[in-house]
């Protein structure tokens, strides 16, 4: 029906702005729901870890109770030094949560800044900024991280800051294309004719109404990425060191006992990694198709 009458308008503008909850499909709802569940338990774990309540001391060595299978007392069992695995898993969120947030902040803040500046003033800034960003983008990320580890102490905060920096170009280019598209729109011109300040136009119309979805999607993907990087570095032994728990080094330590039949030592943290990263990426994908943005990892 609409095809005949509204075809022209459909092409030119978002003819019918449908509220979000109406355009969500079942797959979107499931993946976003699962993603939100993951985000919820991550935040709960982090709050518990920093306040140190409700859980047993994750560093408490108890030689008498080595290799206990999961029970009511020890929810995920104990490891080779008798430490409670559940409390170690909760504690391990400390290792990537704050660094991940730092990575998100760095990439969002700088990406937004660069994107808006180069989108609104293409003549002066665009070329310079994008040469700089191309240089960053052309470095292989893993090598860059290894260089950082060699140069500085293997502090996870520094590493994550660099993860953030390396993902600036992606965010910046998304924002830039958004701004360039919006700049030509009649309603931005109408805002200018009304005398609204440039700051208001940028923050209200460009960022809040049009770019926030991109930023949220980027943030979830970035969080998943930082979990992945932190755990894999710790697994290799260059991230978080024993006895401070991390999901990566828990898998690494537990794998020696895997073939002795004590599979929960490494399997439980590995499953946690899988669930978390999958949840974050699914959340990103779900939001992606919901907002109909075309953001790639």
């Amino acid at each position: 029906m609409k095809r005949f009458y509204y075809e022209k308008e459909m092409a030119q503008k978002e003819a019918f702005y449908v509220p979000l909850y109406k355009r969500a499909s079942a797959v979107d709802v499931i993946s976003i729901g699962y993603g939100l569940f993951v985000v919820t338990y991550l935040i709960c774990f982090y709050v518990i870890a920093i306040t140190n309540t409700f859980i047993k001391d994750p560093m408490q060595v108890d030689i008498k109770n080595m290799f206990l299978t999961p029970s009511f007392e020890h929810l995920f069992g104990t490891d080779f030094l008798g430490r409670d695995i559940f409390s170690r898993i909760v504690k391990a969120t400390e290792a990537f949560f704050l660094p991940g947030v730092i990575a998100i902040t760095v990439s969002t803040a700088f990406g937004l800044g660069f994107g808006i500046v180069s989108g609104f003033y293409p003549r002066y800034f665009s070329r310079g900024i994008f040469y700089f960003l191309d240089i960053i983008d052309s470095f292989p990320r893993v090598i860059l991280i290894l260089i950082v580890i060699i140069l500085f102490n293997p502090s996870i905060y520094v590493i994550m800051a660099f993860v953030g920096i390396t993902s600036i170009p992606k965010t910046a280019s998304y924002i830039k294309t958004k701004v360039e598209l919006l700049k030509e729109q009649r309603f931005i011109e109408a805002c200018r004719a009304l005398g609204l300040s440039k700051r208001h136009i940028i923050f209200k119309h460009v960022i809040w109404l049009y770019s926030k979805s991109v930023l949220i999607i980027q943030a979830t993907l970035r969080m998943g990425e930082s979990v992945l990087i932190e755990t894999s570095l710790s697994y290799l032994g260059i991230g978080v060191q024993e006895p401070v728990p991390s999901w990566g080094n828990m898998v690494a330590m537990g794998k020696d006992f895997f073939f002795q039949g004590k599979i929960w030592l490494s399997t439980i943290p590995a499953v946690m990694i899988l669930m978390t990263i999958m949840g974050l990426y699914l959340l990103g994908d779900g939001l992606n198709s919901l907002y109909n943005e075309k953001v790639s990892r």
Partner: protein
Amino acid sequence: MTVSDETIRAEGLYKYFSGKNQKQPIKACEDVNLSIKRGKTLGLVGESGCGKTTVGRLLLRLIEPDSGTVLFQGIDLTLLKQREIRPFRKHFQMIFQESSSAFNPRMKVYDSLKESIKLYTQLRPKEIKEYINLLISRVNLSRGVLDNFVGNLSGGEVKRLDIARTLSIEPAFVIADEPLALLDMSIQSQIANLLLDIQQEKSISLLFISHDLRIVEMLSHWVCVMYSGRFVEYGRISVIRERSLHPYTRYLWNPMELGVSDRLPEGGCIYKPSCYLYQKRGFPLICSESQPLLIEQEKDHFVACHFVK
């Protein structure tokens, strides 16, 4: 004519657009002079692509002129920086051709209207709501539209909203850029009458841009006819209605009888290839040599043609 009597005055506006791939800059408008008195309407008529909209945007300084001055109540706008011009934007406004794209499609109508009111007045939220309701009823809309997104409204409704938004900050000068072009026949007359009413009520100076000479004639006190970036005839409506002197204006009055060709002029008068006078007079040299200037032929009537006496 005193300065305070005039709302806006433009003198010698030139604008060329230069594209990346074009060698020559594209002519948008040349030598535009106009003035609008308080509470009067100036109609601007011409084909699409002749630079009507460019003139409107130049007057609002949404784009920068290459040369020329725009005086708003005696203040030269072209000397001001963009930042300094912002306080003046309260006084001049634009009604767009495609009103539906002049509103942010992701914003509710109420928020869009609130934005500008908040900027220029210190009303409390409750008062703003009352004020918006007043505006909405002034343009004959129901309050139901306020909770909608712009995409869900019909063309006539959005046009009314655009007029309401323009009214909300009570400007002294309004540009209506082809406000009737994309509307249905039965809605066109509603909007035209609404514009006329509001203009008389608030004594707004209006620049009415259109490609239909008949509608312009109904609404305006002065008319200027534009062809290919230049004004070819300019005068009081009563004079032009009785004695339109330029061949293009005569063509616009009865387009079925006089033909126009598509060819572009190489030099001289811009209207030469389509001009029936040019053919009638036996292709005189003067037409291909120089562009006639806008000369006052009688009181309040300016024409740019070599053959008008």
